[in-house]
């Protein structure tokens, strides 16, 4: 009998705990569900969970970032931008978010805005990847002299950086210096043969 009461008590406690958990941790639950979908690139489903998370906890930073990322990957830039911007306003030193917002601007063709963000992110982190993105965004913006200058800087430090050499070749190519570009392209191909 006592054993039965104990078990019944435990069950009641479990139900209570579960209820309490769902009542207090609903936002996280939805976030992680969304996250699971996000990681499998099922952005539309992920978005619905992140939105649920944010409806429960509007300041959920991870959900905000991942929701913005979902919008970014689904090319819904107009929705991604205010979310990233909100995060940056709240966390001005979050260089990753700046880089992400830079990506959104870059992909949506607003190269100048992207460049500002990449510059800030690079000043904060000094990451090569951001440096490259900055050069690339100037290239897309057809600001070939600046793109070239930045790429030259990268190549000075990392002369064998293949992506940077290819970018440099493209910069020269599209800025009309076909001879310079050909030299880089040939070097890249020779390099490949040597390897």
């Amino acid at each position, binding site marked *: 009998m006592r054993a039965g009461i104990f078990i019944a008590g435990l069950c009641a406690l479990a139900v209570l705990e579960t209820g309490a958990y769902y009542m207090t941790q609903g936002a996280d639950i939805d976030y992680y569900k969304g996250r699971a979908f996000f990681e499998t690139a099922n952005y539309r489903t992920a978005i619905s969970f992140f939105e649920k998370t944010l409806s429960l906890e509007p300041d959920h930073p991870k959900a905000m970032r991942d929701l913005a990322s979902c919008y970014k990957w689904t090319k819904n830039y107009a929705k991604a931008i205010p979310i990233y911007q909100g995060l940056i306003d709240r966390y001005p030193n979050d260089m990753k978010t700046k880089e992400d917002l830079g990506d959104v601007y870059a992909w949506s063709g607003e190269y100048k805005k992207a460049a500002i963000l990449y510059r800030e992110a690079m000043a904060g982190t000094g990451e090569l990847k951001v440096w490259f993105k900055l050069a690339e965004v100037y290239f897309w913006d057809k600001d070939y002299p600046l793109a070239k200058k930045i790429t030259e800087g990268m190549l000075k430090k990392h002369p064998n950086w293949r992506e940077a050499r*290819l970018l440099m*070749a*493209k910069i020269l*190519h599209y800025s*009309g210096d*076909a*001879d310079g*570009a*050909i030299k880089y*392209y*040939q070097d*890249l*191909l020779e390099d*490949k043969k040597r390897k």
Partner: protein
Amino acid sequence: MISINKKSVFAGFSIAVSFVTVFGGGICAYGSAAKEKETVQVKMLLSEAYAQKKDYDSAAKGYREIVAGDPWNVKAREGLADVLSYGKHYDEAIAEYEKMLSADPDNLVVMKKLAAVYSWDKQYARSIDIYKKITELDPKDAGSKALLGDVLSWAGRDEEAIGVYSGILEKDAGNMKVAAKLAAVYSHKKEYAKAVRLYEDIIKSDPNNVAAIEGLGDVLSWNEKYDEAIETYSRIVERSPDNTAVIKKMAAVCSWNKNYDKAKALFQKILVADPKDVNALIAMGEICLWSGEYSAALEYFEKARAVDDSLKVQLAIAETLSYSGRYDESEKMFRGILDKNPSDMRVKTAYADCLAYNKKYEEAERIYNEILTAGVDPEVKRKFADVLSWHKKYRESIIMYDELIKEGAGETVLLQKARVLGWAREYEKSLKAYDEAYQKTKDDKIKLEMEAKDAYWSARVKKAISKYNELIKRDFQNVEAMFDLSQVYSYQRMWGEARSEYEKILGLAPAHFRAKEGLEKTDLISKHIRLDSSYDYFESDSQSRDSDIRRHSAVEKLYVPINDKTSFEAEDWMTERMFSDFSDVFENRTKLRLNYANGPDWWIDGMYTAYTYSKGINTMHNFGGSFTFRAFDLALFRSSYERERLENSSEVIRGGYYKDTFMERVDMDLTQRLKLGGDYSFSSFHPENSRNLAGGDVLYYFSFDPLRFTAKYRYSYDEYNKKVIEYFSPKGFTTNTFSFNWRHYLNKNGMFFGANDIYYEAGYDVSVDSTYIASHRFSGGLYWDITKSFAVALNGFITNSSVDVYKERRIIASLKYYF
């Protein structure tokens, strides 16, 4: 407890190895594929870069490598076909595109490219077929329809092109690009009004459509509406002052419109922006050349040469040197150019032109002949004919012009033939040729030139002046008209006008040697003092007609021009007279004359003569004057009065006999060959007697200079009031005279005012008077302008009559010198 046996261990190991092999290999394969992809990307970019620098062969090589590695790489294959087409390897490009189409027959992108390549390869029919297929597959593709229209127009199928463009415009009236294309086809078809209307519609709907405004300007300029074209272009230039392409067009139109100042200002603007713009420099040089500014033209061509030492610029320099009379430099340069381009007919022709301008006609003719032997070129043949005419080989020249006319030559040749016939003094044929040229071309300027020439040759001086001036006003570069006019002015002694005309000619054609010589002669006559110095022997002997003259005279005559209209003459005759009934007498005659010419309308002069003698004979003072005017542009009327001494014998000289003669004479030029004259004079004699003399003459030119042969008949009636013994004073005395004159000019450079004349002449006159006395006069003369300012002449005649009633001898040797 889990038991582990060997089998299990082996199985586990096998699974692990398989996993590592498959998964790791997969990763490696993935990595290798990515690298290969990047290599292909770099190769593609490398080929693009080669294409960018127009090294299409290297680009093609790159694409071929990619295609060899991956025959299904459509992008590389397309790139290959593209660069083959850019490199004008149209056959290979077409083959590549065709291969792509065989794999994907409805690939519109490839079809469009293939159609384009066919059109570039001028295989318009194939291109048209493909464009038609494209438009069938995609009826909404207005771009391809427009391209179909383009190819149809390039293929000369203008009507179909118009149909295609119109079809597009029916569905899309606002398609201004197509409207512009349609306008271009209309302008190509010379349906300028339709083209203009279309362009105006485009501009109305889009006032900022620069291409349409430019197109409108182009059409207007082709339609020779130069002012409107300039105005249209200026609309663009006002908005975009840096639009050099349009400024160049505007400048070119200004130069066609002969508005050289504006054209120069516009090209100057281009040169301010880019001082090394070769085309602008050449255009400036050409304009300066056309407007006769040879030094400036040379300067521009030299600048152009500094930027681009092309054959075109070198030729321009050599030709300018030739036009500006710097023949030696020009010939040297031409020889240099010919050494480098020995078979270039354009250079050879220009060299022959230069030789012709330098009067090296034989050499020029030889080169033209060489060129024509190599192949028929109507332009060279025309030049050859021109040079033959300058070489006075008029007959050969006319034959060549006739050939050219038969071959369909245009206005220039028709006009030149008429001119050359005029130079050959084949006036009637020339006028006929002018009329033929006018009938064929309906060019009013030709008609005007014909009328001017007719008036000039028929001595309708005022009409000729008026017609030539009108013609020059309309065609201000008509050097032929200017030269004729300068000749009229010169022969009418209108020095100011003549000088101005010569200067105009030399401004346009500095190498015009006739104008140069005419101007030199005009200046000599109108600005320099001239001395005529001569020896004159005259003998007249007649017992029955009271004539006893034998004199030797040394004559000095000074001619002093005061201005272009006024001149003064002073003459001094030192004469020794020998009479049969009186001892020798020395006589000094001083004559002063003032002339005023208001050519071609009227002339007036007044003179005074003083005779002083030795042997106590009284001095005599004579005077007189005349007034000549042109009436109805047909005849010259001359009224004169002169007190003249009688000098037929010692008795009349010693007695101071003189007569006051009032005379009227009219000279009419009926036609180019036929001239009429008539005169009447009344003389009052001292001592008292009077005389009425009336005469009429007719002159006919059987041939014109330089082989002039004329015949003249004159009838005169002479009636004295009373017969006296001191001088021959018959009553009712008539004379019929037939004269024949032959003059042969041997001038080197042709016959014109200012030429250094050299000729001989011979004449024979036979007269029969009312007393049936016949006289025969044989005359001869030589004249030679040794230089412009120095000439010599020798003239004389002998007259004998039947039954020795009278005889006359005269010889005059003279020289003329301008200080």
